[in-house]
């Protein structure tokens, strides 16, 4: 079960990785990350990794390294998207884990 979830997470990670668009700027990447993070937060499942990545992205942007800033913001978004997948998956399956006899 756990392996299956990890595999699913890994393949989503790969899929999301493929989505990264280098033509849109840091602002877009940042906005997309914030949107995904807000959804994860609302579901009570936010990851600290996203928080750190988005902070690092802002730092890179402030230092004028737009390429790195976009990369980091995209990664923050991917982590947030994974957190949302986790939240939905857990909402559906947590019962299976309860010790009941």
């Amino acid at each position, binding site marked *: 079960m*756990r392996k299956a*979830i*990890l595999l699913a*997470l890994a393949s989503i990670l790969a899929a999301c990785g493929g989505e990264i668009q280098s033509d849109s700027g840091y602002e877009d990447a940042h906005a997309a990350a914030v949107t995904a993070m807000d959804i994860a*937060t609302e579901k*009570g*499942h*936010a*990851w*600290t*990794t*996203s*928080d750190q990545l988005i902070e690092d992205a802002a730092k890179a942007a402030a230092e004028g390294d737009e390429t790195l800033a976009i990369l980091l913001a995209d990664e923050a978004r991917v*982590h947030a998207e*994974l957190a949302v997948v*986790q939240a939905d998956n*857990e*909402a559906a399956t*947590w*019962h299976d*884990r*309860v*010790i*009941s*006899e």
Partner: protein
Amino acid sequence: MIRIKYMLVIACGILFADFAHADPEADRQALVNYYQNRFPNVELQEYANGLYAFDENAREQWLEMEDFPPYEIAIEEGEEYFNTPFANGKGYADCFESGGIGIRQNYPHFNAALGEVVTLELAINQCRKANAEEALPYLEGELVAISAYMSFTSRGNMIDVQIQDDDPRALAAYEAGKQFYYSRRGQLNFACSNCHAQSAGSSLRADRLSATLGQATHWPVYRSKWGDVGTLHKRFRECNEQVRARPLEAQSKEFRNLEYFLSYMSNGLELNGPASRR
């Protein structure tokens, strides 16, 4: 006709499912059985001592630490705060049953008027607000000391968390806490139960892992790592962070529901707070 039959089956399934999940006493008994099967030599009350129920060496060091309890100052300060009147002349004793002495076992409870779980720490701040005093911070300082003093006066009392069966909201709060405990979170994808149920008694880095039973009996706790006393919700936050989940706020509704579930699992154990841990 067939369709109606299907719908009935589904409806019954949903009803039955809800019914099956909403039996706190069965949940608690299942956990007791689970741990007692795995650790037949550990007495039930021993779980109130957390990881020291499993770890002989750590237990000896801990008992030595308890000779000069590091939480003693917090109890003394807490007593002083507790007995210092508010600006309006009233005090904490006026807010609580029995003048606030020996009543920790009444918390957490589901407050029907509020429609939410009330923990002792929340009640302390409710008392302040009712007397036109500012709320205190939840993670350290005065409020934690007051909580420590109130725990101290309640030592030996039996935990007996009630979940009103005539109020579905109480059961829903319990279920929400249970869901929290059994849900994986954070980048590391761990549920509380992965560590404290499946892996209870096993080592994680320097520590053995405590069991779910007894996790709510002894708060606040003085931790060497904190160099201070802290509340159960501070510990929740740290356990969130360990798995790279963003911690929720102390006394958030989610954490109060979690405390409600966790305390129910400690029903039948004696309160033994405040306590010390590494």
